[in-house]
């Protein structure tokens, strides 16, 4: 499943990043890498924008970006 399919409070393990460069490098360098635990802390009402936690950072990203991150629900 993709990151945007996780509900608030749910976590997953990152499996693959489908984003193209240079976004892919950006995501990787922010700690969004294979094998890491990622948690959806919050999303806006319309699920447009997500607040996720990876490692010790909070990152805001849009649904479009979240769609490009493959996760396995924990």
């Amino acid at each position, binding site marked *: 499943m993709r990151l945007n399919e996780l509900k*608030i409070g749910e976590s997953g393990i990152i499996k693959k990043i489908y984003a193209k460069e240079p976004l892919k490098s950006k995501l990787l*360098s*922010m*700690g969004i*890498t294979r094998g890491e635990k990622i948690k959806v802390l919050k999303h806006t009402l319309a699920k447009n924008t997500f607040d996720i936690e990876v490692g010790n950072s*909070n*990152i*805001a990203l*849009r649904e479009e970006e979240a769609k490009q991150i493959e996760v396995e629900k924990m």
Partner: protein
Amino acid sequence: MKEIKVALVGQPNVGKSHLINSISGATLHVGNFSGVTVEKKEVEFEREGIKLRLIDLPGTYSLHPYTPEERVTKEFLLKEEYDLILNVVDSNQLEKNLAFTWQIADIGKPMVVAFNMYDEYSKQGGEIDTDKFFKLTNIRAENVSAKEKFGLERLFSKVIKTYEEKNTPRVYYSEIVEEEIENLKEKIKECKFSKRFVAIRLIEDDEDIYKIIHEKPWYSELLDVLKAAKERLRVEYDEEDTKTIMFEERFALSKGVVTQIAKKARKETLTEKIDKILIHPILGLPIFLFIMWAIFQATFSLGSIPMDWIDASFGAFGEWVGGLLPDGFIKDAIVNGVIPAIGAVVMFLPNILILYLGINLMEQTGYMARAAYVMDGVLKRFGLQGRSFIPLVSGFGCSVPAYMAARTLKNPKDRLITMLIIGFMSCGARLPVYVLFVSAFFAPEIQGNVLFAIYIGGALTGLIVAKILRAVLFKGEPEPFVMELPKYRFPKIKAILFDLWIKTKMYLKKAGTFIAAASLIIWFLSSYPAHEKELQNIPGSEKQAYILEHSYLADIGKAINPIFEPLGFTWKETVSIIAGLAAKEVVVSTMAVLYHTPDSDETSKELVETIRKNISFPTAVAIILIIMFYSPCLAAMGTFWAEVPQWKWRLFYTIYPNVLAYLMALIGYNIALLFS
């Protein structure tokens, strides 16, 4: 004296700017919003008889640049001369930060690491063993807190020691990667970078390095080895993209090192708790709107308190100066031209400082990034993104800092669209004009609502224009929105006050010189030619009016007036509106002069009365609409020109708001005609 040139490098939000401020009391802006440090800043200081020169490079997540700022950092690290890299790391985010540390360690320059924000980290029970780190990586490191000025002196002596020993990092990846690096190194001949660095960058598809290597005679021989190396890594790591492999490799190395050097801190939970409320899916937007409302409320209500004092002091100052100078042109120019003009500018300083303070607090505490998160969905519908929000908010205060704030936008298209609509966020200087016309033409009970409608109407129009610009001139997919939300932090009062002081100085200097000069021109044009012969036959009280009616300004106004006749303007309105291009406050004072009211205070009942008698309601509507949409003041326009180098956009920016304002006014005028 010996000098060490140090490149200060780190990921965004690690407190690099703070570190620079803590050394020398220098003047860098410190904020929590990702990427506040855009410009290259340097500080110089002396330690142990050696001059240290720190160059603050824009925060960057990796050496694969994503934004123009990150490219600046990479270009500097690859192309400029420097002696040593000082890498600042956030102790609370070791793994992510160190993954970048390994990237810059690859360059092979002497390097020192500062584990910053160690105070927070140790408070949560964390510990970092810097000796162990040195043993593992051959990189000297120190635990520091830039905020608490702790550990910095030890850090600098390590910088000097590292420089003197020419001590370079020894960071090794897994066996397979290292083997391939060795294979590649054999094929790499002369090059300005270290062989190791070139080998690694080639594995991870660094195009900048490719471009340099491409021209080398040994390039073709290297190609087969590189292909084989990448192929082997792909198989071993079960991943197609070798760049990703290297990212994962570094991340794994970070994790390994961190378990050896650090005792983990307890998780900081404050941020999560605050965020539960502040960016709540339903409450987030209302809370944000409330905070903005509160800031504006404070800006207008608190800001108006010192206004009268400033006005009175400048009045008194003008009289005092007038008493000192002999009568003549210079006295007139200074007392009637320059001093009131500067007074008008300074009068709005309190409003602007309060707004700055609000925006500054939002930045420093980390709320600004949240506000961008909350607003992203709304802005996206208009072809903008969350980050655009900050400059747009600043635009309600003054367009000058707003244009500068747009620098935080990474994407040139987003930045340009944002800058093109900042003018529609009615700035503080337009308020006097609105107040004057709203109180002259609307019933007291709806005046507040009309004023609110003017501001909201301007902002909404701005968003719609953004949408059109995106659809017509800036086609293409909107940029991805990925932004770190920094932890909430208590702001340093001293840093904020210092920042306000800097802003005050900048405002007084920049806007003051600009508007003073512009007002001087207006004053001159409205006071000359002198017509001394004719004036002899005119009673004293009407002299001023006669001069005006026959001034250069009147000539100009009458010449331009045909353009504005469809809006019901006479030359006086025309001149006032045009004068407003210098500064919006000038509209009110010009009208006061032209309609022959002795006191130009916009709240003066007399002026309101005169305006109501002399101007029709539809024309008033047209004037309000023009003020809302036409070009901002000269200072703002100058800032835009300074920020945007492309001539076509400068030209577009200078023309289109005026066309739009005219059309809006024409529509408004005719609709108002129907109703009256």
